[in-house]
């Protein structure tokens, strides 16, 4: 039985993990960098250990210091959250060596699913569909042409030593095949000194759909249905929802069993995610596996009614899964919006700084997982994710209405956030109709960037308020308190209105 867990993370996910620990009567140990002494996770934990300077390479990625803290605290286990060391096989191995339970999969699963080529081969063996393409690098032009004809257009030619878009060519027309191979190879040899290429089927309007899986150490594995993650900006997920508007019951069953097969093929235990790419004709292909808790796990928790962190901990304790596939179902609809400290009007530039004021959205069907508070300074060193807003409703249209309401009520000043941008997405027809793929933000850029006009009257009221503040401030420097009215002023006002209106 795990009695004390060190959470090797910060921000909202550290607190989210600690909440489940607290409910399980497990003590939680925070670790913090120099920049994080004031962070909420330090205050929320039962114990807190300093692990180094602000840059994550010297603190949250510092294996020695984290292991040191865990041993000093006498922690039975370490939960890595997401990011940082969560998919680091060496860290998992080190925990094992030190006799500390790593709350996650085995080092073997992490490393074998972490390498894309190994993972791809393993999936092919397990009968899970992968994006059609060549398994080995090609250096022969004729072979390349015949492979392309086999796979069918459109295809993507990729330099096998490549990266960063260099040596990549999208081929849509038959006439371009030869010239594309040649130019890709010539670019590749210049850039990497190697002209070998891969050929992969190009998915034109891809949907990003992932399946949550849970597997125990006794060979039992289940899936907890899908999450639709196609609303992305620069390959970063912005909004996720479940069920996917694209999904059919048959497809869900089929993809779900492939997800379970994938987990079993990796001898996986713990919580994990199988990411698929799905085209408009509902063909789906294994993309990769995330061997950790995902940022967007709460929408699954809400719709399926499980606490995934508690399941992770129970699995780590060696317990058998109590959830049975046939007993699970999706109830209603959930949407998550990621709230980032960034300025959507200035090309999403990060916006660290001090939170001057915050009003969090609450009420029916709203979950809010955050970590900032009034007066907190968001550090410059880490991810700009401030919080996650998760809504649930019986139907998708109601969930969208609820998300609009929650975004409307969510106020943060002092920094810029993505809230207005997210609110705009909720009003985009393609989103409302559930008719979108990973090109959604690009395709709707004009609509998304146009801001609702506040109108002249509203502008006037903004400037009158600024003037009022300015005036109160000047007046107060000669006597009164800081702009808040005292009781006597207030009573005058009340009486005056009473006379005037009633």
């Amino acid at each position: 039985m795990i009695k004390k867990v060190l959470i090797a993370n910060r921000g909202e996910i550290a607190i989210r993990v600690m909440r489940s620990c607290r409910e399980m009567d497990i003590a939680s140990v925070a670790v913090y960098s120099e920049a994080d002494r004031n962070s909420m996770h330090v205050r929320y934990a039962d114990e807190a250990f300093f692990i180094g300077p602000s840059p994550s390479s010297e603190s949250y990625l510092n294996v020695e210091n984290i292991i040191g803290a865990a041993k000093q605290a006498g922690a039975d286990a370490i939960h890595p959250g997401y990011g940082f060391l969560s998919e680091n096989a060496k860290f998992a191995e080190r925990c094992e060596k030190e006799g500390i339970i790593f709350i996650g999969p085995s080092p073997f699963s992490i490393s074998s699913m972490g390498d894309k080529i190994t993972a791809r081969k393993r999936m092919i063996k397990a009968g899970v569909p992968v994006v059609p393409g060549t398994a080995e690098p090609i250096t022969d032009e004729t072979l390349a042409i015949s492979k392309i004809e086999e796979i069918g257009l459109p295809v993507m030619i990729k330099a096998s030593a490549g990266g960063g878009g260099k040596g990549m060519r999208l081929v849509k027309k038959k006439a371009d095949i030869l010239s594309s191979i040649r130019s890709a190879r010539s670019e590749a040899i210049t850039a990497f000194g190697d002209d070998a290429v891969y050929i992969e089927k190009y998915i034109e309007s891809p949907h990003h759909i992932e399946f949550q899986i849970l597997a125990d150490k006794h060979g039992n594995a289940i899936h907890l249905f899908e999450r639709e993650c196609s609303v992305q900006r620069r390959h970063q997920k912005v909004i996720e929802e479940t069920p996917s508007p694209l999904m059919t019951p048959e497809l869900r069953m089929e993809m779900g069993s492939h997800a379970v097969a994938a987990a079993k093929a990796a001898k996986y235990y713990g919580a994990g995610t199988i990411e698929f790419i799905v085209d408009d004709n509902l063909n789906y292909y294994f993309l990769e596996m995330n061997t950790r808790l995902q940022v967007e796990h709460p929408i699954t928790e809400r719709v399926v009614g499980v606490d995934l962190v508690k399941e992770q901990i129970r699995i780590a304790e060696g317990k058998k899964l109590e959830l049975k596939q046939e007993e699970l179902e999706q109830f209603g609809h959930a949407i998550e919006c990621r709230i980032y400290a960034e300025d959507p009007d200035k090309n999403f530039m990060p916006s660290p700084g001090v939170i001057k004021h915050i009003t969090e959205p609450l009420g029916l069907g709203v979950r809010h997982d955050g970590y900032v508070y009034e007066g907190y300074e968001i550090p410059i060193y880490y991810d700009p994710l401030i919080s996650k807003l998760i809504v649930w409703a019986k139907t998708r249209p109601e969930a969208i209405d609820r998300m609009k309401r929650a975004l409307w009520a969510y106020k943060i000043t002092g920094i810029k956030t993505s809230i207005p941008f997210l609110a705009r997405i909720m009003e985009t027809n393609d989103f409302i109709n559930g008719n979108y793929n990973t090109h959604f933000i690009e395709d709707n850029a004009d609509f998304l960037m146009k801001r609702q006009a506040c109108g002249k009257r509203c502008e006037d009221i903004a400037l009158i308020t600024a003037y009022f503040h300015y005036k109160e401030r000047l007046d107060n420097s000669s006597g009164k308190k800081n702009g808040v009215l005292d009781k006597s002023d207030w009573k005058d006002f009340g009486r005056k209105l009473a006379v005037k209106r009633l």
Partner: protein
Amino acid sequence: MSLEIKIDDRTARLKLIEKNGNMLKVEVDDRIYELDCVMVEPGVYSVIYNNISYNIELIEKKDHRHYNVNTLYNSYDIEIIDAETKYRKNRSKDELDDIRKIASPMPGKVVKIPVSIGDKVKAGDTVIIVSAMKMESEYKVQKDRTVKEILVKEGDTIDGDQTLIVVE
């Protein structure tokens, strides 16, 4: 009492007609407003005008004349142009017609300064790179310039709007 207020690019004339505690009667350009304006939390105002309820958030910037003001989904820069401001503005008009001070609007860390004092740089050349939250931003000069002062060094943590480099 009457003064000018700048809201983004618009300049409005505001005249206070009456103020009674939180009840305000003002004229903005040609329109008269009677409203009830209360600071309910630090920097958060509840304004009731014609029984419509507005929430206005306001952050003071460098001084009591400069504010960032948020309405529902809009954000404005507002400047109160009082007598002192006017005097200063007139004086420094020609100095202000080009950006000579390079600053980053966001706090962060200086990653690289590819120039030295005395360097002649061309329009569009990067003079400093700042990183925050794992994203790097390059700051460039708008015209051909000479680097006059470098106020920070690589690795420094900087505040938003802090002057980093001066060119001329």
